[in-house]
């Protein structure tokens, strides 16, 4: 009983750590990456970019941790789906780590660009555009395994009433909206990190924070 309570608390804390630090990091240090002059601005903000990359990497590890911490609870209600949910969140975490590596690569390119005297219409712009496009794309793609993994555990939560059904249903609906926005962004129907995409992702972000508090305070219903 107490194990389950501890596990719920850990999972709740991980949910918060997987969301809050990255929002703070994006607000504080993300501007130079999203700026149109990222090649020159990133080099001047080396420490900020490295901190931003570190936060993304931390988020990746936390997301993988969510999958691992949910596994012992979910496996009581079906080992296959529990393992699949964990696998998808591990995949999400790894892709976030890849995204952090991409950011560091972009920083290295930006530094080389400035060192070369910021030449216009050079190799740097094309290489930068490719790395940045891939990085932006990873930021959308990692949401897919998250959606699949989270759909699995919210379905189990809904079926078993481990958390209130309304919360599980909110999660499933939020994930459906996020899936629409992810595909929209991946295939160019919606801007990546556009206000429309943020609006679509808001319900699941809020739901996860409510779920986190619920797990910390109330835990799973036994």
């Amino acid at each position, binding site marked *: 009983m107490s194990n389950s309570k501890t596990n719920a608390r850990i999972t709740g804390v991980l949910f918060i750590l997987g969301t809050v630090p990255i929002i703070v990091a994006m607000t504080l240090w993300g501007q130079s990456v999203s700026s149109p002059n990222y090649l020159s601005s990133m080099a001047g903000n080396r420490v900020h970019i490295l901190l931003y990359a570190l936060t993304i990497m931390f988020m990746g590890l936390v997301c993988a941790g969510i999958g691992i911490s949910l596994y012992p609870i979910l496996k009581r209600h079906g080992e296959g789906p529990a*393992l699949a949910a964990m696998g998808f969140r591990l995949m999400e975490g790894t892709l976030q780590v890849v995204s952090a590596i991409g950011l560091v690569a972009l920083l290295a390119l930006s530094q080389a660009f400035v060192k070369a005297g910021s030449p216009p219409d050079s190799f740097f712009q094309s290489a930068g555009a490719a790395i940045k496009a891939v990085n932006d794309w990873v930021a959308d793609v990692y949401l897919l395994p998250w959606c699949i993994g989270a759909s699995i555990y919210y379905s189990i939560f809904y079926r078993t009433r481990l958390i209130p059904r309304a919360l599980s249903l909110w999660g499933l609906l939020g994930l459906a909206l996020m899936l629409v926005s992810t595909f929209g962004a991946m295939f160019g129907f919606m801007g990546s990190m556009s206000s429309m995409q943020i609006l679509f992702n808001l319900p699941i972000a809020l739901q996860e924070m409510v779920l986190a508090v619920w797990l910390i305070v109330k835990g799973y219903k036994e």
Partner: protein
Amino acid sequence: MEATEGKSRLLGLAFLIQFVTSFTSGVIVLPMATGVRGFGVPDDIGQTMANIAKNAGLIQLNIFMELVTAAGVIFLGAMLYSAVRKQHEGLALTAFGLYVTEGVLIAVTKLALFALLVLSRQFIAAGSPASLELTARLVYEVMECSSKMLNFAFCLGGTIFYALLFKARTVARPMSLWGLVSAQGIFAGVLLGLFGMKAPIFLYVLYIPFELAIAVWILIRGVKKEDYHE
């Protein structure tokens, strides 16, 4: 009992999804989009980039299908784990981990393809400069290398799973033996590729129809019920 039949169908379905998406995207869509029919970096990378820029829709379709494959691999790994964990839990979990690695590497390979698409568009817009060919060649190499690594993870994971399926008799033994033997062909091909040698196509041929065959087998005949872990 009904739950076991449901799981058995899910396992069959997982193999089927895996076969349909990987075969269609790898054997039909990608060669159509790039104009490259064999393995390795094409000699005329400029022409390949022009093809990619011209067939951006097909490239995006390939990426989408491969992402479905990546999800399918993890799903299949979880289903196989449930089916064989009674035989050896540690080995089954290791194989599942290798399937997760494979799924991640599929996504990474497709990231490299996406980078190639962006570079190809820039290559055409900039009037085909040679400097971009060099970068594209590098990205293509990364794509090829991660593709070899994902096959490596798959071969190890597949070998463990098929050996456990063989031991458990979850499906007919000739079927799991087919998987076990044909995965070694891919393994040999991957090893040759890693050391820069061209792998003969026959090494891969035996495995290609296997996933379809086992999917159909499981969907029609089901699995041995008492070994399917609830």
